[in-house]
């Protein structure tokens, strides 16, 4: 969902619907809550104007403050949908419900929480309905009454999005982030709609005409009778020699040194990566051995990947399976700041290198000495040190390893 091409259709009623800079707000006041409703709109407008685009986080903070300082039953139910750097954010308080449809359909209401509900809505959302609790997903909203910016009476709103259009992403406000980002031009082959089998969902039905929720095509496989399943060998006992996992690429041979307990280590190791014993007094005879995993990547969303193979990282990394040696590493990025095949990570001896693949927004390595992001030259692999931070568009990862001390 992109905020700039939203169609905003208010539902008739005596609450307040506001279309502000980067946010939609619906307030449903009771008879003695009208003043609070208008205060809320003024407050939200202030937060949106101050944020200068992507107000979701500022708005949520403002609302949280208002809610925590208000007395019991003082605030009317309200809900908002606001643009943010991590996607569109839904915020609900009290007896108001949201119906979200698109790749996944769900309903959520403000009364599911004792305080409030806020949630980042996925990128593939096509329609959001904000209405009083119990109204259902098809309120009476006449598309002829489309609301541009402004504040009008209404007791709900239907937001829908047309074809997804790329718009420039607003720059991150954090100073430590890489320079302004371009948004990758989507093409027909990669729009989420292409993954849907069958026709696109029909447009919202005309007002007053009840219609069932369109069923998006799906395929299903029963697991009740699994049938013939390929038999596997029992797992080895820990004391037995573990065989190489079948799907792992051929393990490279490298030269290294053995600790006094015969664990294989990098020639630079000061301590054994397996048992932690000091390597200082070992005779440094180089021996050949199978390369152990060189560590792991920790991404900003908390996912980790083992460095026992090369990776192609991107929004839709296409890996030639016949090559068999590079794994695809898919980076979710609703803002499309990551290219489809963005950067490549290779294991070379005991080193890890990163190369940009000519991505639109570049690949950056954080330089501790200058406190700046260094943009990599496309196609030139650069070794990274343990502890290094790397940015691909708005996604970042840290390279960690047990094999070398930090800064080695």
């Amino acid at each position, binding site marked *: 969902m992109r905020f700039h091409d939203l169609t905003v259709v208010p539902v008739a009623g005596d609450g307040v619907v506001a279309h502000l800079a980067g946010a939609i707000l619906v307030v449903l006041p009771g008879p003695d809550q009208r003043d609070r409703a208008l205060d809320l709109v003024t407050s939200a407008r202030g937060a949106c104007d101050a944020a200068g685009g992507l107000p979701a986080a500022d708005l949520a903070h403002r609302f949280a403050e208002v809610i925590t300082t208000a007395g019991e039953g003082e605030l009317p139910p309200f809900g908002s949908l606001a643009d943010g750097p991590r996607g569109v954010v839904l915020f609900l308080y009290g007896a108001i419900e949201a119906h979200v449809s698109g790749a996944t359909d769900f309903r959520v209401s403000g009364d599911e929480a004792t305080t409030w509900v806020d949630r980042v809505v996925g990128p593939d959302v096509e329609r959001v309905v904000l209405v009083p609790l119990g109204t259902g997903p098809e309120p009476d909203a006449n598309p002829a009454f489309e609301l541009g910016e402004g504040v009008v009476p209404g007791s709900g709103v239907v937001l829908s999005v047309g074809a997804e259009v790329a718009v420039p992403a607003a720059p991150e406000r954090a100073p430590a982030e890489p320079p302004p980002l371009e948004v990758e031009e989507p093409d027909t082959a990669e729009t989420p709609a292409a993954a849907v089998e069958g026709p696109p969902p029909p447009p919202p039905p005309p007002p007053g005409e009840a219609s069932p929720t369109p069923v998006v095509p799906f395929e*299903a496989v029963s697991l009740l009778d699994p049938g013939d399943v390929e038999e596997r060998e029992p*797992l080895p006992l820990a004391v037995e020699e573990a065989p190489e996992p079948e799907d792992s690429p051929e393990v490279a041979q490298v030269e290294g040194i053995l600790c006094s307990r015969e664990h294989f280590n990098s020639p630079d190791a000061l301590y054994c990566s397996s048992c932690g014993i000091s390597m200082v007094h070992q005779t440094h005879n180089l021996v050949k051995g199978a390369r152990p995993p060189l560590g792991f990547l920790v991404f900003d969303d908390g996912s980790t990947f083992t460095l026992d193979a090369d990776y192609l990282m991107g929004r839709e990394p296409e890996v030639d399976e016949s090559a068999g040696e590079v794994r695809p590493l898919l980076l979710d990025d609703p803002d499309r700041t990551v290219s489809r095949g963005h950067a490549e990570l290779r294991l070379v001896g005991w080193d890890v290198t990163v190369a940009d693949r000519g991505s639109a927004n570049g690949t950056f390595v954080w330089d501790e000495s200058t406190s700046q992001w260094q943009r990599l030259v496309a196609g030139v692999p650069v070794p990274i040190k343990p502890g290094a931070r790397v940015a691909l568009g708005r996604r970042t990862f840290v390279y960690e390893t047990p094999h070398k001390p930090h800064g080695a």
Partner: protein
Amino acid sequence: MPASRVADYELVRSLGEGSHGEAFLAIPPQRLGVDDEHVVVKVLAQTAAEDGFQRVVDQLRFVASVASPHLARLLDAGYQSGVVYYATEYYAGGSLASPSRPLERGDVLTCLAQAAHAAHALHEAGAAHRGIKPANVLIVGDEDGAVNARLADPALAPVLSPGQTTTGGERLGALEFIEPGILRGEPAGRASDIWSLGGTLHRTLSGQSIYEGPAPEDIVSAIRSILTTAPTVSGMLPPGEAALVQQCLAEDRADRFATALEFAERLEELAAVT
């Protein structure tokens, strides 16, 4: 008219976020042919291409083919607009992380022993679970007060995304149940699952992490701290349980219980004494 659906399941309410994505209580479609009023539908956070869905189905069919009365029953897997979901039986007793009623020490030992039997069945069939933690040991609600456990959610991340060891959906707290060797890139196996069973027993009985001190606030520090800190068994555990946990958490994989079955039997002995 249902408020919201996944494929032909009617969603009733969210059951919260798991390591793979969000779980929902749902009304099953007739085509499944099950009598259950409710089932659980897990919607994977990670979108997948058609071949990714096929790999998930293969893995789930494999798990479904493992004969163990203590594995959560799998019902159905599906794919809709790039989103993968699967359905399992719903158990009303909650999990060891949030049981629907307080559990006695003996109940916890019984549940863990049953989870260990389920893990052993998986190991004998040729797969590691990789995701054993209190929230994945589900409890079957029973009127006569007896407890029964079901081990749920074998890890799908390695199937969907080769090389991935933890998913973004993991809360920081879930890291304490992952064997440090897995984070270092060692292959998952019996020993790493046995480590997780020990961490699960420790957390459930003591309410404490095996890592002392304040929990780090970000994932990178949390992982660094796990890789540099030896686990400590809480003094709150009775000696018998403490010894079992200690053996599960042995640094050298060969010093742990050789099989999850052995661990299960030791738990049963302990439960019988009380």
